[in-house]
């Protein structure tokens, strides 16, 4: 049932109660993940991706720090209404998470093996010896050399990338239905990154594991995701399937995002393209469209009124912009130019292909 909704986030608001006041880090986010689907989440740093992810698992300190509003439906039940004990059944079992910060997310006083084994034994009824074997296997899968030995090392003895892979291994050990991966490959070199994404997509295919992939690497998004959610300042600004997003981004922020990717063929003497200005403070959000202060196309309407997330008739993309339609056309023009460049680049790569094909028959 590929169309079955596994996770459905509806108008989620996550508030932090700080000394400076109540602060909505996530402000009305809605999206869904279907069973077996890989959904990418991209967005400006600090826009609330990690908070959204952790809200789904309700990992934030509800006693003191946060409160939620809205609905998070997972396999039919609203997670926000569950008791902590019921939540525990879901965590790891149904939904697993890879954290963004690998060092502080690993317990410094246990070997990585211990931490992986713990996850394995928690969800699979097997004996420890078997679990050890599995842990080593998982490490091997994540491309960590000499896993038999590494498994007994402590987090501080590993490199940044290795720690990240340990996090991945822990999450995969749970064999969840939904994997939330918060920037799982930032510390990995491209070869290992590719290997990791391969691993994840394979599990996705084989076990119909859904993935919510938070990343900054649009390359990874393009290669692995089926749908993409674009966030900006606590809100979803655009949501589309991957092809149409890259082909026809509608929101000016998304357009800016596409333009800022450093390309392999860019002019190195030039500055990279970037959207001017910075994200406004969460304590002081603009009343209208949240992107308006930085948007080149913003007009009075944008500054006064917050646009709703609406379906764009042409592409089926959900977008939060008053000018979605007009902007798309403007983008397509530039896109065409880039497309030719890319295909040229691809051709060039093809020419040097001798080497590559020699390696990979």
């Amino acid at each position, binding site marked *: 049932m590929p169309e079955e909704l596994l996770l459905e986030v509806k108008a989620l608001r996550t508030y*932090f109660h700080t000394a400076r006041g109540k602060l909505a880090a996530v402000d009305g986010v809605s999206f869904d993940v279907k069973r077996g689907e890989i959904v990418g989440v*991209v967005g400006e740093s600090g826009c609330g991706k990690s908070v959204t992810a952790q809200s789904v698992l309700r990992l934030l300190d509800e006693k003191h720090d946060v409160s939620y509003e809205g609905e998070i439906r997972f396999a039919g039940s609203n997670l926000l209404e569950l008791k902590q004990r019921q939540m525990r059944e879901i965590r790891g079992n149904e939904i697993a998470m890879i954290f963004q910060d690998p060092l502080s997310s690993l317990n410094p006083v246990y070997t990585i093996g211990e931490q992986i084994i713990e996850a394995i034994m928690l969800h699979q009824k097997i004996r420890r010896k078997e679990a050890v074997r599995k842990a080593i296997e998982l490490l091997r899968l994540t491309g960590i050399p000499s896993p038999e030995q590494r498994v007994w090392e402590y987090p501080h003895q590993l490199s940044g990338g290795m720690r990240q*892979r340990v996090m991945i291994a822990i999450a995969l050990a749970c064999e969840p239905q939904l994997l939330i991966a918060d920037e799982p490959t930032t510390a990995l070199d491209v070869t*290992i990154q590719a290997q990791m994404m391969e691993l994840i997509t394979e599990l996705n295919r084989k076990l119909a594991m859904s993935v919510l992939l938070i990343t900054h690497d649009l390359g990874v998004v393009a290669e692995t995701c089926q749908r993409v959610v674009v966030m900006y300042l606590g809100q979803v600004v655009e949501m589309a399937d991957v092809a149409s997003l890259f082909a026809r981004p509608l929101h000016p922020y998304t357009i800016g995002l596409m333009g800022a990717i450093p390309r392999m063929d860019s002019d190195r003497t030039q500055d990279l393209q970037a959207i001017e200005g910075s994200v406004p403070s969460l304590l002081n959000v603009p009343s209208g469209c949240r992107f308006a202060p930085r948007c080149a196309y913003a007009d009075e309407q944008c500054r006064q009124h917050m646009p709703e997330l609406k379906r764009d008739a042409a592409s089926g993309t959900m977008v939060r912009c008053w000018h979605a339609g007009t902007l798309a056309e403007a983008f397509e023009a530039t896109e065409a130019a880039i497309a030719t460049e890319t295909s040229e680049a691809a051709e060039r790569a093809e020419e040097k292909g001798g080497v590559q094909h020699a390696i990979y028959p």
Partner: protein
Amino acid sequence: MPSIHEQEGGPMPLLEVKGLSKHYSTKRPASFRKSLVKAVDDVSFHIYEGETYGLVGESGCGKSTLGKTLLRLVEPTAGEALYQGEDLNRMPSRQLRASRRQLQMVFQDPYSSLNPRKTIGRTLEEPLIIHGIGSPQERTELAMRMLETVGLQEEHYDRLPHELSGGQRQRIGLARALILEPRLVICDEPVSALDVIIQSQIINLMRKLQRELKLTYLFIAHDIGVIRHISDRIGVMYLGKMVEEARTDDLFAQPLHPYTQVLLSAVPIPDPRVKKERMILQGDIPSPLETVSGCAFHPRCPFAVETCRKLAPAKREVAPGHFAACHLA
């Protein structure tokens, strides 16, 4: 932009590394045998003033260790690191502390490198206080300006690290390194947690600072696009060793070492329409825990010949300014 320093007979390099090694010995469980991790193994290179030296390599190949060893945050096992002709490894600690004003580091792990008890403002002012720069007022002002510079707001001044997002923390790390206006900054993945827009802003900023202040960067990153954009020269590390070193354009035009070739082929392309054939490395993944005879890459190298299995290749200059450690290059 290749700079004049790279030409033969140019001025003295700002940083010259000779035969630097860092070996960790770790205890194996259930046995008293110790094993040696050669995290950095006999690495030599140099960096000129005002240039950006990009460092790429497989995860776990020793890049971070190299960076930390250079600044003597971990004591090297062997070798020297000459900063302006003076060996950092032999410098008395007082002098070393003083030179650290000019040598800064951005840590790979942004959260744990920030003191969880200090507000962001305090963290940013700390280096200024250490080196006795400015009055408290000026320091505050400088810190606030730095916050804006890296795309954060004034409100973040009073926050604590755990109240920030990953990318925000990373920017704090960068801001802390840059606030001293150092001469050499070792950036260990300074932009990995940033979205491309802020990443672009930061990279542009770093380049601007470099132009204005003649900053020198040792830039460790996994994002080939970023590395390519910012670096003047690039070093490729594999298993603790420097396997290739060249000017950026040369490297991209003509990668000599097979590992470099694999690396470049694996770069994901941000276009769902292009389905690229990626090179996936075969063979056993090597480990710095085991000593491999011959070339460290041979177990995975498709071209490996008998010599590769027996003899470790030395780094040699294949083309002008283009070094590689491969028998076949």
